[in-house]
């Protein structure tokens, strides 16, 4: 897109001399996106990235008014919602974009798993993506506590207790996670530091790796498409694919605006550390299936504590998920792997059912 007119042309040339825009343009022109019946899944990574950028922008705006202390956190959020112009909008968008981001991230992950897009040579892309998923969940967990309301306080208490059941080091890890024996103002500052400094920095670094790997290897073509003689054609990334991406982002933006206007993020009641836990405390929806599983486990499985077994099982499942490219050698050779297909279906059904139960089962049973 080289400008034809006088001063624009001059400006372009000036920048090109210094930045090498022509080379970048050539690189972008070279990048192609395969076109086939699974192309739709290629948009989800970009949409997640867009939502992450929204999170950074609204997160920075929230920092202008938020105060990370147990005395002031709740009040500062209340002030932000009630007194600051468009404060409700910024917080609501941050809230909804976080949820949408995790949602698109899950779909992105399952689609990659389904299409075996992790197979050689894209293992590192998968590892970095898995890392980013972990970071996104950590973002959600730490961010949930920051408004310091009753629901988030007790959910954090329950959530952090889980690390306490780790054999031997449990108690120590619990202290590190909470910044003390219990969830207090110290936990809040700790979570705040993670949420606005440690996690964003790590995420940006890992995201750099992820995007570089995507750029290096290009889009993966699914096995079944390859078997049928490869993709029907390609589409230039710039501008054709990017423009389509933009349409997706704008749709996400419109959805965000609607959610924020019709379902603004609520604040609830200020946390009281000494009050008894209210009935029906629940974590964010993306932790619900794990939370609910732990509830259903019996107190003891053989000689082990039920909760410990559950957490251990989730840890193993998570680990298997991360090292799937290493385990799955058949896909590398282009052979079918029905086992993985069935496992993915089972996992999705399990997550949906347990999440559904988490929201509908009576909290007292």
């Amino acid at each position, binding site marked *: 897109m080289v400008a034809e007119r006088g001063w624009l042309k001059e400006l372009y040339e000036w920048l090109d001399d210094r930045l090498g825009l022509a080379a970048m343009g050539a690189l972008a022109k070279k990048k192609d996106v395969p076109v086939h019946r699974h192309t739709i899944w290629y948009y989800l990574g970009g949409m997640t990235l867009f939502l992450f950028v929204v999170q950074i922008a609204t997160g920075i705006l929230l920092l202008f008014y938020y105060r990370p202390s147990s005395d002031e956190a709740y009040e500062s959020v209340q002030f932000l919602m*009630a007194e600051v112009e468009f404060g*409700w909008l910024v917080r609501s968008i941050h809230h909804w974009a976080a949820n949408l981001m995790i949602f698109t991230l899950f779909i992105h992950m399952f689609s990659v798993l389904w299409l075996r897009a992790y197979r050689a040579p894209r293992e590192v892309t998968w590892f970095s993506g898995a890392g980013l998923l972990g970071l996104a969940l950590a973002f959600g967990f730490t961010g949930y506590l920051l408004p310091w309301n009753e629901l988030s306080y007790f959910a954090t208490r329950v959530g952090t207790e889980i690390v306490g059941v780790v054999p031997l080091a449990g108690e120590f890890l619990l202290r590190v996670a909470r910044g003390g024996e219990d969830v207090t103002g110290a936990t809040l500052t700790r979570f705040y530091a993670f949420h606005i400094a440690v996690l964003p920095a790590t995420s940006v670094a890992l995201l750099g790796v992820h995007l570089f790997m995507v750029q290096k290897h290009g889009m993966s073509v699914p096995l079944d498409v390859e078997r049928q003689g490869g993709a029907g054609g390609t589409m230039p990334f710039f501008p*054709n694919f990017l423009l389509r991406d*933009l349409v997706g982002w704008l749709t996400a933006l*419109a959805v965000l*605006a609607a959610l924020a*206007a019709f379902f603004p993020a609520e604040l609830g009641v200020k946390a009281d550390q000494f009050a008894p836990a209210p009935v029906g405390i629940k974590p964010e929806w993306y932790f619900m299936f794990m939370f609910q599983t732990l509830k259903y486990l019996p107190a003891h499985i053989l000689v082990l504590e039920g909760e410990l077994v559950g957490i251990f099982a989730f840890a193993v499942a998570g680990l298997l998920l991360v090292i799937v490219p290493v385990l799955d050698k058949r896909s590398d050779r282009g052979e079918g792997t029905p086992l993985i297909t069935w496992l993915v279906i089972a996992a999705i059904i399990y997550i949906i059912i347990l999440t559904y139960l988490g929201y509908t089962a009576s909290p007292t049973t």
Partner: protein
Amino acid sequence: MQWTWNRGLILVVVAVTWTGAVRAQEQEAEVDNCRVCHSVLDDERLGGPARAFTGDIHAARGLGCADCHGGDRTLAGFEGMDPAKGFVGRPGKLQVATFCGRCHSDAAFMRQFNPSLRVDQVAEYSTSVHGRRLAELGDTAVAVCTSCHPAHAIKPPSDAASSVHPLNVAETCGACHADAEHMAGYQIPTNQLERYRRSVHWAMMTDGGDLSAPTCNDCHGNHGAAPPGFSWVGNVCGQCHSVIADHFAQSRHAKTFALLGNPGCATCHGNHEILRARPELLGLGEGAVCGQCHVAQDAGGTTATTMRGRLDSLRAAYGGADSLLLRAEHAGMEVSQARFELQGALNALVQARAAVHTFNPARVAAYVDEGLDVTAAAHQKGVEALGDLRFRRTGLGVSVTIILALIVGLVIKIRQAER
């Protein structure tokens, strides 16, 4: 419970320090032989008091056995317990009051220990039902000093372990009054403790942690314990519920109840089992007390229903405005001013409920109308705050239109690029 104890405690500390110093000098010279011997006696009747006495307030003030029982503590052996040296063994029930009163009725003596402590307990006791039965009928089943203040383990009311701590008073009185066997000869009920434990006053004291909430002695007196009597129960309740007592005293019910011999406040609210005054108490419906005397056809019944209706309308208006504001607040609207003003309605409701005791619907209506004005204003503000949502929706409409236009433009652009 009236608290003179905070101030008392300071003085007690001063007194202890002072007497302690005096006693310490004396004790260097003399050993308390009574406790030396008795505390090692196996017989509980002889050794028990000496062993229990270490936790007694009198021991803490530096008093010893001989200060009450007489005798000579400097002498070991039986010669110390010579009646000639003023020794009194165990006082009989008839003598207990005078026994304690030797010191506790002596203002000059008591001043050394606790100048703010009253010295009229024995005089009061003689006016109580307990004291009169003891003196006039020689009834030894009644309570004497030691029945409530266990001898040799007496603690001040401020001590949570004391038998006369506010939380323990009911239990202490109940030791006899809730014992059907003990009370068999007196023809009075024995369920007061059980009923009191269901009352709002007990709930305030235990769950509410309010030690100033009334227990037995706050209405019956302590040393002068007696039933309050029908004609003046309003005075007792009015100690705390003064506005209501004033309203009631000027009402027609005050006179009628007196004529009928009805027990004032207790006619509707009961005595020991005084429950929280719920809205249902007023009127003729279920749980209402007016229906005990009135029916829907008489003037009293109409009055009760009218007052109940008024109060309910204010309650409903308050609830409506409150939940509306809460909704607006949860939507992130600034409604603190409206919520602040809405408190005025709560004020009016509380005053209207108190005004029920005038039994004059016009008085109740005046407060209710005042409250309804406040709720109407708050409701209006809530509606306006939620009206802000319209602004949000307009803004949303505009931005979604822009986004849609952009999407259309992009789609056309893609078509052009790929044509």
